[in-house]
């Protein structure tokens, strides 16, 4: 088989189902979305991922990822 479809994974980002290329890291996701360098915080399956680990954190099938920002509030 020559026309192989690259493997993908399905995860949830902020509650929305996304299909991403296998091997995508958090750093890739943030870059692709235009969020790199912005003040965000990331939680993966309920655990905080420190900014320093984005590049080495590969997203796995079924992961639930939350990306948050500060907004106006009282």
């Amino acid at each position, binding site marked *: 088989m020559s026309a192989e479809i690259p493997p993908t994974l399905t995860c949830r980002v902020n509650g929305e189902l996304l299909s991403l290329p296998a091997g995508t890291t958090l750093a890739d996701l943030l870059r692709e979305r235009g969020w790199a360098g912005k003040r965000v*915080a990331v939680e993966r399956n309920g655990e*905080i991922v*420190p900014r320093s680990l984005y590049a080495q954190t590969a997203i796995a099938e079924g992961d639930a990822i939350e990306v*948050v*920002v500060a*907004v*106006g*509030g*009282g």
Partner: protein
Amino acid sequence: MTEPDDTDFLTLGARRFRSRLLVGTGKYRDFAQTRAAIEASGAEIVTVAIRRINLGQNPDEPNLLDYLPPERFTLLPNTAGCYTAEEAVRTLRLARELLDGHTLVKLEVLGDAETLYPNMPETLKAAERLVTEGFEVMVYCSDDPIQAQLLEEMGCVAIMPLASLIGSGMGILNPWNLRLILERIRVPVIVDAGVGTASDAAIAMELGCDGVLTNTAIAQARDPIRMARAMRLAVESGREAWRAGRMPRKFYSADPSSPLTGVIGRPTP
């Protein structure tokens, strides 16, 4: 006339502040107005909410923190919208990461969407967890002196009872409960929620509260910048009046300020 002295600080955990007015950043027309109102309020502490970034968001869209740099203001992340201890704790862990390890936070765990009244059992559970994890917790709570004491004993750095419902602008509905709280609590007591206009803020401060937190009263005023200034003046006035110590109330006993003697046309005694 003496100026307010330089030793009157609001101490929250490890930090000291000169301003006793804390302001929210919600419900403004835009970020420029948010910033202008906060400048006019003189507030050093501003609350922010933590929310999911919009997946479809234009990456060039301005960000609240571009207008409120953390170097300039003490950002107080809140847990608005959280209904369980677990949600609140998760939100503040994210906030700590977002703000580079910042630990001063505003905990609020709501009971229902209609009243936004605090759910105290969940609030207590979250407070205990957060204190254990090293957060400096300022806590929105009911105006119940026993709950306030429990939160203080847990190690919260400020007790923030509601004056009336969040966003209601109904003012200080139960000054007697606030006084009960003030008599027992040693950490700062900050009225959070319900302030509608400047006199409400002044009343809270005259009762002996250590500060006032308000958002809607400023943001939803016809002229938010002017109301922000009014709130600053009211908090300063109320604080000075409390420190000055008001005269005792003397019901049914009038006492003129002018001399009783020397009125013209009277025989001298």
